[in-house]
């Protein structure tokens, strides 16, 4: 019997599949190629609609211009600081709570789990959160950015599932040897959990690195902005000018140039680490999907 993999129909399908998937790759990568081309192009070529795959009038003047803006670096540094601080806080809280939730004998565990899971179904919403952060006096401080989203329930459940899968014998032996709960968590459980911790750190770090809306809501001082807000303001400025129809050619061309470079400089760190960390993300998602 001839296996169906060899039939002509299947070969035709493989051909079509190859074409479709090549199309997917092109569509996914094209915006990046275009932005690279734009970032190195002279503005008159961009305005003329002549920049597509390769830079026209190659130059790095725009890069020099953006890099020479002290505000850009201030905001970039803020992004780094917010990401580090927020990730540290998030990891501390998530690890502690996940460990508690992973103890099946614990009385009140069900309630503790539902305290977290319920917030996935129903959230207070934008306005009450805004009012709360204002009332707490956190506005225009780093805390308004790093505290309100400190625990992601998804990450919490991933970690809890992982902790539940750890062998109990080691913990028990350590407890018999006289380690208290904190000691067991710190010396026994965490060293066994390096893989999941790496994944969680990455999940949190990327989400904080990319976040902009919390900062947009709670920060008014430009010196405190993360770089995402810097970029957002460039984009908003550009659309504002276009929408008003004022000085269209001149204003939006300069902005397009600078926008392209700013996008490049913001996206570069992500692209640089992406190939190395991608598999951790995939494994993290799998871990979280154990239930589903």
């Amino acid at each position, binding site marked *: 019997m001839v296996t169906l993999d060899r039939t002509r129909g299947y070969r035709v399908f493989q051909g079509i*599949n190859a074409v479709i998937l090549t199309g997917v*790759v092109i569509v996914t990568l094209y915006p990046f190629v275009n932005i690279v081309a734009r970032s190195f192009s002279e503005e008159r070529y961009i305005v003329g609609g002549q920049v597509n795959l390769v830079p026209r009038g190659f130059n790095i003047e725009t890069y020099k211009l953006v890099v020479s803006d002290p505000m850009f670096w201030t905001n970039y540094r803020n992004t780094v600081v917010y990401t580090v601080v927020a990730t540290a806080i998030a990891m501390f809280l998530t690890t502690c709570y996940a460990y508690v939730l992973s103890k*099946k004998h614990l009385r009140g565990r069900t309630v503790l789990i539902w305290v977290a899971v319920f917030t996935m179904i129903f959230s207070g919403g934008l306005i009450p959160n805004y009012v709360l952060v204002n009332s707490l006096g956190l506005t225009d401080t780093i805390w308004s950015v790093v505290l309100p989203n400190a625990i992601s329930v998804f990450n919490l459940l991933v970690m809890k599932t992982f902790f539940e899968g750890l062998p109990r014998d080691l913990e028990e032996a350590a407890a018999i040897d006289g380690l208290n709960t904190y000691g067991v968590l710190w010396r026994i459980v965490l060293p066994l959990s390096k893989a999941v911790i790496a994944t969680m750190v990455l999940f949190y770090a*990327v989400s904080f690195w990319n976040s902009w809306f919390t900062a947009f809501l709670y920060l008014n001082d430009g010196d405190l902005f993360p770089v995402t807000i810097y970029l957002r303001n460039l984009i908003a400025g550009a659309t504002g000018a276009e929408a008003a129809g004022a000085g269209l050619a001149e204003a939006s061309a300069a902005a397009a140039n600078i926008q392209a470079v700013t996008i490049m400089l*913001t996206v570069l760190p992500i692209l640089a680490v992406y190939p190395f960390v991608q598999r951790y993300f995939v494994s993290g998602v799998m871990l979280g999907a154990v239930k589903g």
Partner: protein
Amino acid sequence: MRGQEPFDDTGPTSVLVQKAEPAFPDPVGKTLPNKRDARPGSWRRALGRDWQLYTLAVLPLAFFVIFRYVPMLGNIIAFRKYEPGGSLFGETWVGLRYVKMFLADPSFWNVFTNTLVLGTLTLLFCFPLPIVLALLLNEVRNSKVKRFLQSVSYLPHFLSVVIVAGLVMQLVSIDGPVNQLVKALGGEPTAFIQKPEWFRTIFVSSEVWQTVGWGTILYLAALTTIDEQLYEAARMDGAGRWRQIWHVTLPGIRPTAVTLLILNIGTFMTIGFEKVLLLYNPLTYPTADVITTFLYRMGVESSNLSYAAAIGLFEALVGVVLIVSANLISRRAVGTSLW
């Protein structure tokens, strides 16, 4: 079989409680407290044994209470007048004044319609396309090529929505590639980002671009768990490729698909509002403005916080109704549910 495992003797009294523990994993904590635990005095016993564990829960609980549950209660300002600088929970009862106000506001019904349309379109494209892409990727035999394809298609997921919005703006700008194509085909360049009739296309395309690749992960994982013998049996019965996909592959990934559908429906109401906020402008409000962006402008920009809270509460309640009913329907219909 799990009953054979050693008990978790963290203290001298734990054996009693341990024995009463259910013998199956309990991922979201559906287990009801058992009778032994309900005995008076067992809380004191639990505290005595596990107080260190409970202390670990204190800070996380404080987080949930302050940043999740207080805002939930803070929704009370939908029915109480909030004064800037005043109490978190408002000053005086006004009953349903703000609810009546937004129900009578034509702008509200406009953004309500826009939310439904954008949400439906997004769901229509962003839910099935990952399944299709996963099936196509699954047919790639060369593992290096497959890994490359996966890496590329996951990439957009890692970008900030601000960057995605920036890329979109450049692509559809008057001098961008889309208009270059339009010109090459003999058309007139259009400022797409200012045209209400183009907003939905732009939004949904960018959403597809960013989410479809990453969305394949769980399906690809589910595909690898399908028993090869099922395909073998189907072939024996004379099933061609299409029939194998229909009768073996699709049923195999159904639980994953249903779970993801419920999750998608759960975020239906708030979907992509950050991107809307970045991409829209007053010219495109007629199609682009959604509930969350509207209440953002009402509340944060115009300081009508009580009015905006009333709309937000409505939005959240619709979201809960959607996810709970989706969960219920799927449990009844296909036996898969989130809880």
